[in-house]
């Protein structure tokens, strides 16, 4: 069933929750810890649904998936579903609202999102792909407590520009980058290998990770660090002044675990922010 107003969608959710419990049993519970928004342009739809499936069990909440379709005819289309997980004698439900913002509607998403947020709880947005850093993006930035991007999803040639734009939003909301989180295991090894001069590093990874590691070293050490980048899908090696850094033990964590970790943090990370500023230079 689809709806075109917020009131309709609220009613639909209540009815769904009601219908999901067995007749004669206590109604299923809604236990909320956050509202989770996801901005999902066309090409990211499959990936977003996959991550969501891994996440819902860990963070029951209201998830609002926003699908911007600026090139279609003006229309707002929403549908709601409830995912319930057995728990003891009853079940716990998490809500998923899919919102298709067509035509003009895609230009003012906040007016659709704000009435759907659960009051008094934190709001996180996962922004898929590279934002345009315009009015639409800023509208969302201003209603959320935390913005989560993955700069690995951004085109290589636009990364520096992207980091500069992102840095300008640090005072408006808490920002985190999954690409940065993926470097954490390696940063720990680098910290273990210090002291070193680090005038020049060579990184085999995505370009985003190479830039972030270089930015981090620049901002922490306070001097210029040259970076040579060898493209790879995952971070596989780091050389500092020609010397190899030992690879961290164990396997890298899966994407839903990385996102899940981000959803548990609420405060700004000054080390990350300085690294991004330095990466954008």
């Amino acid at each position, binding site marked *: 069933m689809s709806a075109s107003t917020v009131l309709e969608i609220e009613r639909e959710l209540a009815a769904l929750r009601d219908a999901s419990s067995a007749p004669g049993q206590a109604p299923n519970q809604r236990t909320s*810890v956050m509202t989770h928004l996801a901005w999902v342009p066309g090409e990211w739809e499959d990936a977003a649904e996959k991550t969501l499936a891994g996440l819902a069990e860990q963070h029951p909440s209201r998830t609002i998936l926003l699908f911007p379709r600026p090139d279609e005819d003006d229309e707002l289309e929403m549908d709601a579903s409830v995912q319930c997980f057995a*728990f003891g004698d009853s079940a*716990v439900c998490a809500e998923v609202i899919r919102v298709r913002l067509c035509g003009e509607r895609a230009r003012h998403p906040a007016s659709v999102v704000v009435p759907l947020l659960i009051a008094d709880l934190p709001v996180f947005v996962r922004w898929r792909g590279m934002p345009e850093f315009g009015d639409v993006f800023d509208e969302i930035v201003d209603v959320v407590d935390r913005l989560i991007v993955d700069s690995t999803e951004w085109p290589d040639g636009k990364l520096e520009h992207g980091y500069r734009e992102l840095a300008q939003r640090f005072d408006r909301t808490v920002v985190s980058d999954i690409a940065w989180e993926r470097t954490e295991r390696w*940063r720990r090894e680098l910290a273990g290998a*210090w002291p070193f001069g680090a005038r020049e590093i060579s990184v085999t990874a995505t370009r985003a990770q190479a830039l972030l590691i270089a930015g981090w070293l620049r901002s*922490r050490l306070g001097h210029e660090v040259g970076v040579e980048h060898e493209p790879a899908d995952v971070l596989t090696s780091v050389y500092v002044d020609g010397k190899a850094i030992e690879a961290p033990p164990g396997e890298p964590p899966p994407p839903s675990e990385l996102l899940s970790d981000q959803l548990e943090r609420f405060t700004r990370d000054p080390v990350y922010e300085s690294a991004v500023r330095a990466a954008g230079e």
Partner: protein
Amino acid sequence: MTETLENPLVEGLKVRRTPDPCVFVIFGASGDLTQRKLFPALYSLAYRRLLPEKFAVVGVARTEETDEAFRDRMESAVREHARDPFRDDVWQGLADGMRYVATEFDNDEGEEQLSRCLAQLDEERGTGRNRLYYFAVPPSAIGTIVNELGPRRTTPGWVRLVIEKPFGHDLESARDLTKRLQEYFAEEEIFRIDHYLGKETVQNMLALRFSNGIFEPIWNRQFIDHVQITVSETIGIENRAGYYEQAGAIRDIFQNHLLQLLALTAMEPPIDFTSEQVRNEKVKVLRSLHTPGPKSVVRGQYGRGYVEGEEVLAYREEERVAADSLTDTFVAAKLYVDNWRWADTPFYVRMGKRLARRETTIAIQFKSAPHPPFEEASTEGLKPNVLVVHVQPDEGVSLAIGAKVPGAGMTIRNVHMDFLYGGAFRTGLPEAYERLILDAMLGEQTLFTRTDEVEEQWSLVDAIIAAWRRDRPAFPNYAAGTWGPVSAEELIQRDGRAWRRN
């Protein structure tokens, strides 16, 4: 003068609590606890990469067994009891460092064999001479093992002893045991485990009380009418007659779990969450409990009855239980905490085997509204507010409030607002043993019982038992599958109150 430079790269990196390399030695490795709790917990810790990389486990027991057979037996135990799916690579990581030593605990040669095995593991696996000894053995064996271990303790490297309940069987024996332990080991090295303290909801009691501004101001005699703590089990003694005949409900549950739950409910806010501060506050509560008179304690023993529709035997008919046994399988008591916060507020507690339902709850019963402006009929059956902390089986918190029934008129009924722990944070609740084993490896003692706590607990129990010696109860006095003897009902009804019907 040389200047030490601070590492500029460390800032902002998450501090991961990974224990030092060590060998985990289990005495009593052929027992039930090792299979049902310890290995599943170790596996779950390995699954989450929380164990140190350089790690080994040595099982010690009397039963003859090879390393291989021990590994196989533990693998089946993990497959059956662990909360995580079985993964070969995770298990192999653990199994590679597993050894088994068969010996009598007082056998010098056996202990030498264990020492050699440990030294070899240090060499092969880099476990750095750190040892965590887990005593999954009857109390009588602890002293013997300590006498063997003490003189052989390794240096450098740390040694920690984790000791299962019961810690002694009365104040004197507990003091004796402490004395024997302290001949070789310091209090900081002794971890007396009470697995209730490892449960999420028990720790949540502290979060609930001390991180919410709304509860603490009313958490006192002015607003709370009384507190009820229930630890009920539906199972019988499950082949543990030897232990239970000596212990009874009073030593099995009251002395440890129950008094710990009470201490957490009644304690003052600690100034911080360090082990010393939290335990200082708990021990103050235990010290302020005054010994209940004989009328304030009820004991019981189950006779035949029905549990979940199935007929079960009376306690005296259980295997290896004396036909005229006077062991208590049920205890109920009215306790008072004599301090400014709780004076005259009764804590009714009850615990037992073969009761109607399995549950552990702490119920805070608030006083009634002073003057409800409604007609009497409209609030008929309305009970005062109750805040219930469910420790098991469904971990969570619920609050009963009065609410208007929709429709004309003004009828008010009780409504329960439930917060299910797993419902809000579905990360899978860790088993108590996982948390406690990890804490012991990290040397973190907050969730373990300190000597003075144990001694306070025993002095209360000793006083109750001393009074019991004077009379001969008419056992059995309650049918299996009920809520205990009639005298338990009378205990609370005398005060114009009633046990919660769960």
